[in-house]
């Protein structure tokens, strides 16, 4: 096996690129969990975003329309989740699972209706990379950071933006208060339910955009299993990142690198005839995610989880 071909600059460029869909969803999840809502519907929101962006980009022949459609689909599912979790206040774990099954069902139906049962998806026009003049010629760092497509930069800016929003704005303070002590926030005239609605819409939009980045920015095609558990991985990464958007982003980069690494090892070790089974590499991103989530949970005796996570708030009823 040619290890120098595996561990090259392009590994890191690919790892960063592959990390972005998961990073967007994970940071979105981080945001709404800080507001106290456990959104297990993330996988469904990513899938819906991926599908809508594919249809948008295919029919309008425009990546921008695709991305807008992806965000829209994610926000719509965020509204479904908010209706169940914030308005009806039914159990959030079940709501999330329901949203995933809902999204999977409708996506499979709509895809078969639009593209037939054959399963072969048409290709949409891939986005070209943007080479940022000057910066891209920095050795090593240039190709990794400054020669990606436009969605990469948007995703990176958004994930960093969530950190600023949470820790440097008044609204972010409200969000964190609502997740830690909703009754106290309510007494301080914060509309708990309104903040949670907003947080879920933002989270849905980011997960939808994550799906769109996966399809429009990377794969240029669609199938019903395209998100392949990235939404669930993203939720695990929020735990790993101790509900801090920057650490969560770091976790997503780790996931992306693992994914890029396993793809490369598979490709250069001869695939189906390899001595090491390729299933091991396919399972690697999930194994690593599980391992880091367990490690983060075991290590942290001081609990970083928002105190009111998963607990619906009813005004006037003490928790």
């Amino acid at each position, binding site marked *: 096996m040619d290890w120098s071909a595996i561990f090259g600059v392009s590994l890191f460029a690919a790892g960063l690129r592959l990390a972005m869909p998961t990073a967007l969803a994970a940071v979105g999840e981080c945001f709404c969990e800080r507001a106290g809502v456990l959104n297990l519907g993330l996988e469904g929101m990513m899938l819906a975003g991926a599908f809508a962006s594919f249809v948008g980009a295919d029919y309008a022949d425009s990546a921008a329309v695709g991305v807008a459609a992806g965000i829209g689909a994610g926000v719509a599912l965020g509204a479904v989740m908010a209706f169940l979790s914030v308005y009806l206040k039914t159990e959030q774990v079940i709501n999330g699972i329901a949203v995933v099954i809902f999204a999977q069902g409708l996506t499979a139906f709509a895809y078969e209706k639009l593209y037939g049962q054959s399963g072969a998806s048409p290709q949409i026009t891939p986005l070209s990379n943007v080479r940022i003049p000057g910066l891209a010629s920095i050795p090593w760092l240039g190709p990794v950071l400054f020669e990606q497509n436009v969605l990469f930069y948007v995703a990176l800016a958004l994930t960093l933006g969530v950190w600023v929003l949470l820790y440097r704005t008044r609204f972010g303070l409200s969000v964190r208060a609502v997740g830690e002590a909703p009754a106290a926030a309510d007494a301080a005239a914060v509309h708990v339910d309104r903040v949670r609605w907003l947080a879920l819409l933002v989270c849905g939009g980011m997960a939808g955009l994550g799906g769109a980045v996966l399809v429009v920015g990377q794969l240029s095609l669609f199938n019903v299993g395209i998100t392949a558990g990235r939404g*669930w991985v993203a939720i695990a990464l929020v735990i790993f990142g101790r509900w801090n958007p920057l650490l969560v982003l770091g976790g997503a980069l780790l996931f992306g690198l693992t994914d890029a690494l396993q793809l490369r090892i598979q490709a250069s070790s001869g695939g189906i005839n390899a001595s090491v089974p390729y299933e091991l590499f396919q399972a690697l991103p999930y194994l690593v995610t599980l391992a880091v989530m367990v490690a983060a949970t075991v290590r942290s005796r001081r609990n970083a989880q928002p105190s009111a996570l998963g607990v619906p708030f009813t005004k006037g009823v003490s928790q």
Partner: protein
Amino acid sequence: MTTVELALPHVSRRAGQIRTIGATLAAVALGLAAGSILIVIAGGRPWSTYRDMAGGAYGSLFGFGAVLVQTAPLLVIGLGLALAFRGRVYNIGAEGQFYIGALAGGAAVILLPLRLYPLLIALAMVAGIVGGGAWGWVVGKLRARWGVNEVISSLLLNYIGIFVFSYAVRNPLRDPEASSLASKAVPDGSRLPTFPHLFTHVGILVGLALVPLVWYVMDRTPFGFRVRMMGLNADAARVAGVDTSRMIVRLMVISGGLAGLAGIVQVLGVQGRLETTLSQGYGFTAIVVALLGRLRAVGVLLAALFVSGLIVGGQAASIDQGLPYAIVLGIQGVFVVFVLVADRFARA
């Protein structure tokens, strides 16, 4: 120990049951109404499509046999999930547990040089339960020991389990003569027999036998009482002396074991060999079944028959009316959301 329920007036409990049943029926009606929107979008006529679906599923012995084939895995998995969910242990790893159970049981049947077939079948089922149960045990232990969220770990283990399964099918157990990727066939004698005239393997009997058992365990034993107590209020249960950590592990092992049992029954009853297409998403559809069945044993039986009818009828209707087959998945997805909404209004 049973004072909590006895303290409630009998009348209100009956009223609660009636409300629950009413809400579920309302959810089914709303789900079917929303499904008819999907049918219209797909270019079909709702009334005749539903009539075709009902006819295709329940209108003939052949159709009903096909329904029972789908019911077997959904019922067995759904009962285990209902039990776990009652205790608020959210196992969504049944798909992986199903595959690991199928692998453990299938490997036993293929590798053991035993020709006493009833014993071999029994051993395979035990192996299936142990395999699926072990896969669930990992999740339960992680949650009980360190508080690792079981929803996410069980889901991630689905992927890992399926990769383990596909490796085993591709390498040690592979049938080199098969045209597609599949394991060696199980010996003919270990295949489950079929009912006369019904084109259905007897695996459904496993599910039917489990219904009263799960009902009894859930409603009439101290264990079931503890499960329900945990579901209502885990802190209160702990204060009352319930070892919740141990209960979590047990519920994961039981629900994983039943999913594994469903896996090996599917191998011996339907495919006759291990293939990566063994589960048609049963582990996830069973979540719909458990929720629609309101986490009660009898409810799960009815929900499994209903959802299986939807699957079989949907196949028939999609052929007759030229609708996308995935309309069935769309309708299931809508159902789940409506069940939650209806449930909320039943309690209000």
